[in-house]
């Protein structure tokens, strides 16, 4: 059927040019001033059209990466589409296409994203400019909300070589503490006690 996709993927790996670009270490050190939801803009200029090598229905990938989204933005989108409406999930069986959406929603509600707002994120990424962090690192910090130096460690790449010393790390953590609301407290699987503390902007 024209327009049908085999449900296991479009390509056998030959078209993964963007994958190589995205996964290169260089892309993480991009420190130019992009708006928060466009992390890898400089790659897009090289790409206009890409035809899928396998199927004959020619799905054209205009831009594989038209903008990276924080967890909060996706959660917001799902909320606006009514994913939080619990009654539909209980009454009707979940169709395959809803499965992913609802599980993504469930997953995101357990992350710090559920207590964030758009203003908080924009404010935070503006303030982060002072620390000269790569966009990927700011995204990581927003999604994970590290609460201590050790939680921040896997996010920062080569901090000593970039001049990010202990003082800078403490500064980043203070900013996180002040601007990003704490995540909900979720017990180990079984009990989902979400304690949403709306401490918001404490700065």
């Amino acid at each position, binding site marked *: 059927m024209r327009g049908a*996709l085999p449900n*296991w993927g479009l390509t056998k790996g030959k078209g993964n040019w963007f994958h190589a670009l995205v996964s290169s270490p260089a892309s993480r050190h991009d420190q130019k001033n992009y708006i928060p939801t466009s992390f890898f803009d400089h790659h897009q200029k090289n790409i206009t059209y890409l035809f899928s090598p396998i199927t004959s229905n020619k*799905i054209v*990938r*205009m831009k594989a990466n*038209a*903008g990276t989204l924080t967890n909060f933005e996706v959660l917001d989108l799902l909320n606006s589409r009514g994913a939080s409406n619990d009654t539909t999930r209980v009454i009707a069986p979940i169709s395959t296409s809803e499965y992913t959406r609802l599980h993504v929603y469930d997953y995101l509600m357990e992350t710090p994203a559920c207590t964030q707002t758009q203003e908080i994120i924009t404010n935070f990424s503006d303030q982060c400019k002072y620390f000269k962090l790569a966009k990927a690192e700011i995204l990581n910090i927003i999604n994970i909300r590290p609460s201590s130096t050790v939680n921040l460690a896997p996010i920062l790449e080569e901090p000593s070589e970039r001049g990010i010393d202990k003082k800078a*790390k403490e500064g980043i953590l203070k900013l996180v503490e002040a601007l990003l609301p704490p995540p909900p407290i979720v017990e180990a699987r079984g009990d989902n006690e979400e304690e949403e503390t709306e401490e918001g902007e404490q700065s």
Partner: protein
Amino acid sequence: MFCLSEMEDTVRVPPDLLKLPLEVAIKKVLQKLLLNKVLSIGLCVTIYDIKSAEGGFVLPGDGPATYKVRFRIVVFRPFVGEVIAARFKESDSNGLRLTLGFFEDIYVPAPLIPRPNRCEPDPYNRSQMRWVWIFEEQEYIIDHSCQINFRVENISYPPVPTEQAEDAKPFAPMVITGTIDDDGLGPVSWWEGCSERNNEDDDT
């Protein structure tokens, strides 16, 4: 871990959907086509919007109206180096398997588990192996008691197998390889309460 992806495709809207507003009908067809499927760009989560739809011709001998649609979708595609919070799913002698609920093919192979470690048969679950990290005389077990933070090392899209043995694992079109061998990674309980100790170290 989510990206927007802009795509263009030829969409056939079946006649029974044509009574709906065009945008709704096209979205329905796209959802059926793309949602929950792994494309080469990642796992499709939801349709973000439809930028343009042109055409609407009905070809001779064919019922559906054909539209050329430009749209954006939200895909799940983490980048290498992203730190993600996941839950433990199972483990065996090759390593760990983690899950995000909507995505379950995250593997942490044995070399990326912090050393020194050992793998022992799980006393609570006879069919599984359990990994234990040994650090400063203390043993840290990796199990499902809490969230596990891992960093993405690699994402691969294995080719579809033409034949599969009867008892082989279901085919995974997208596989994420992660590492927990770094400060702050692994089960979060390992790092709770050690912020005071770390403040004395100057080399973190």
